[in-house]
């Protein structure tokens, strides 16, 4: 039982972490919250779904090949969309209050969600997500470990690790970190601000697309409203962990998943109160560590 709950929580945490990483990246370079992020996750899943339909319509049946196509399409299209949104919605509002970016991206998210609901065939209904990973499971007592879940867990963890390495070891990562620290100085050092921002948004949105595909494969189902709660949870995770830090986002996501799972198990009155419990705990955590669990250390200038 306990092992099963631990694994369930871990899997949930990895999906949340993929979403939270995007929030933390955007905040790092632009100090903004992009509220459409959850809906980009959803659109990523639907892009993969449409690609699956097209590819299997074209006669491709090999699961690995199909999956590769789906991932390529979802990640590629979402990365482009992310850069486009940064270009059209975020960068032009640089002079306005940061909260305006929040509203404009929120509305962009609504537009994405409503468009999928209205224009994807039968979009207001839940869609089955194809089962492309090997079926079968390892059973021991009450513990079921499915191979597909294990693969997804590995995929998610690898993506997060790769993002961390990219930020720490590559030139692009260096540029992102420099812009996050101080755009003006970065510009003086010859780091192009706009290009770096666009690249960051593309990266974060590709991660969102991956989250969407992993989510779809894990639950075998996707629906147009899935981004709403995932977005709120991803944001919460990023903040709880400490905005601007990838490892903080991962930690925050794991904490949130643990809170939800624990909430469903230990709170009297059953699982209906689990969100009350989880969000109450978030408020308590924030009071304890006001700048997140892994806060960047900074002294304020007076």
């Amino acid at each position: 039982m306990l092992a099963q709950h631990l694994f369930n929580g871990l899997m949930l945490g990895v999906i949340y972490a993929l979403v939270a990483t995007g929030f933390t990246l955007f905040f790092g370079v632009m100090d903004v919250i992009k509220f459409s992020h959850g809906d980009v996750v959803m659109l990523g899943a639907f892009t993969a779904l449409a690609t699956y339909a097209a590819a299997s319509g074209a006669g491709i049946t090999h699961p690995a090949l199909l999956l590769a196509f789906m991932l390529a399409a979802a990640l590629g299209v979402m990365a482009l969309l992310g850069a486009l949104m940064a270009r059209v919605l975020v960068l032009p509002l640089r002079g306005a209050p940061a909260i305006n970016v929040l509203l404009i991206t929120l509305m962009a998210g609504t537009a994405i969600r409503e468009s999928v609901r209205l224009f994807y065939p039968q979009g207001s209904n839940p869609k089955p997500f194809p089962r492309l990973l090997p079926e079968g499971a390892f059973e021991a007592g009450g513990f079921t470990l499915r191979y597909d879940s294990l693969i997804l867990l590995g995929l998610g963890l690898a993506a997060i690790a790769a993002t961390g390495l990219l930020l720490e070891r590559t030139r692009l990562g260096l540029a992102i970190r420099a812009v996050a620290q101080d755009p003006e100085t970065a510009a003086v050092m010859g780091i192009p601000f706009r290009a770096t921002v666009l690249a960051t948004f593309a990266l974060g949105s590709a991660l969102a697309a991956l989250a969407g595909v992993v989510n779809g494969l894990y639950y075998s189902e996707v629906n147009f409203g899935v981004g709403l709660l995932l977005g709120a949870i991803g944001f919460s995770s990023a903040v709880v962990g400490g905005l601007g830090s990838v490892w903080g986002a991962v930690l925050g996501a794991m904490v949130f998943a643990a809170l939800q799972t624990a909430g469903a198990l230990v709170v009297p009155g059953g699982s209906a109160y689990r969100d009350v419990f989880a969000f109450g705990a978030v408020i308590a955590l924030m009071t304890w560590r006001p700048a997140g669990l892994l806060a960047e250390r900074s002294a304020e200038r007076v």
Partner: protein
Amino acid sequence: MPVAAWPALAAVAIGAGLAAALLLVHHKAAVLAVLAVGAALLVVAQRTRAGERAAASAAAHPRLVPVAVAACGLGLVMLLREDNFALLMLCTVALQTLAALGLHLQFGYAGVANFAGAAFLGVGAYTAAVLGGHLPSVLVLVTGAGLAALAGLLLALPLLRTRGHYAALITIAFGLLLRTFLEVNDTLGGPQGLKVPGFTLGGLAFNDAIVFDEDTEWSFYVPYAVLALALLGATHVLVRRLERSWIGLALDAVRVDETAAAAFGVNGGAWKIAAFCVGNALCGLAGALLAMVTGFVAPPSFAFGDSLVLVSIVILGGIGNPLGLLPAAFLVVVLPEKLQGLQEYRFLLFAVLVILVLRLRPGGLLPRRLRRWPGLP
């Protein structure tokens, strides 16, 4: 040279005219035409600097303008006296603006972005549902405001310790938590909701239509609309006063730079919490009256999306400018209703419209102006 009063009066009259037109038209094409006229007027006002002249004129006649606005409000109610639906929309706009005024105090002055506006609205509304009929209605409104402020105090400590997006998350978490709690817990009607008794004053029950004779009957929403507009007007005057006082200056200082303000002896924390509580009280007040107008409360009306509606009003209005709230509330509350003809497509169009407004006017409809002290050049 004395500044003429007419530019301010003309601006008020044009605003009232647009509001009346938007409330009265139903047809898709007519709604879009009214919107186009409004947008055109805004552009013209900006190009010809007519907006600035109106603002200067309003500043020079601080007594006249509120009277003109009140007269226009009353005129609007009289014009719509038999139109139940238009009056209900007017009530909703007025009360959402009242709640947004609370958020404006919190955000525009103390820098606390409140993403749980609907939750505090809900506290007021549920107060009206539980206490209505047991207490005089006026007391119910006051209690609703008080309880909302009290509920907000729960967040005082976390909010004092956090800033910016971190503080925003605390309000988001609270909003989600309260809504789920109302739904799961059955003591307050659970998901099914509760009926709310109407407002009564002396012997006058607001829920009865006003019948003069067989042919003349005014909607029962007339007294509600008058009350809502009066509350909004009074609160607006109060907020303006506050803004010009040293309290407003202190709040501004806290918002712009808490650390520097502290260095000058302004106790940021206390002011922040005070502004937060007053703002929530306004939300609670609006919620209590809105519940009486609607006659029913249930958890789905106080979801995160409804909190975002309030935030949208504050941002679209132009952060820090209470005058912008009213047109913004009109846009956010009335427009989706007027787009009913588009059925399932209306939210898509609404989202696109808001994106356009923000792109074309990044500072909101009527952005905040710099503080000016009378007597300074």
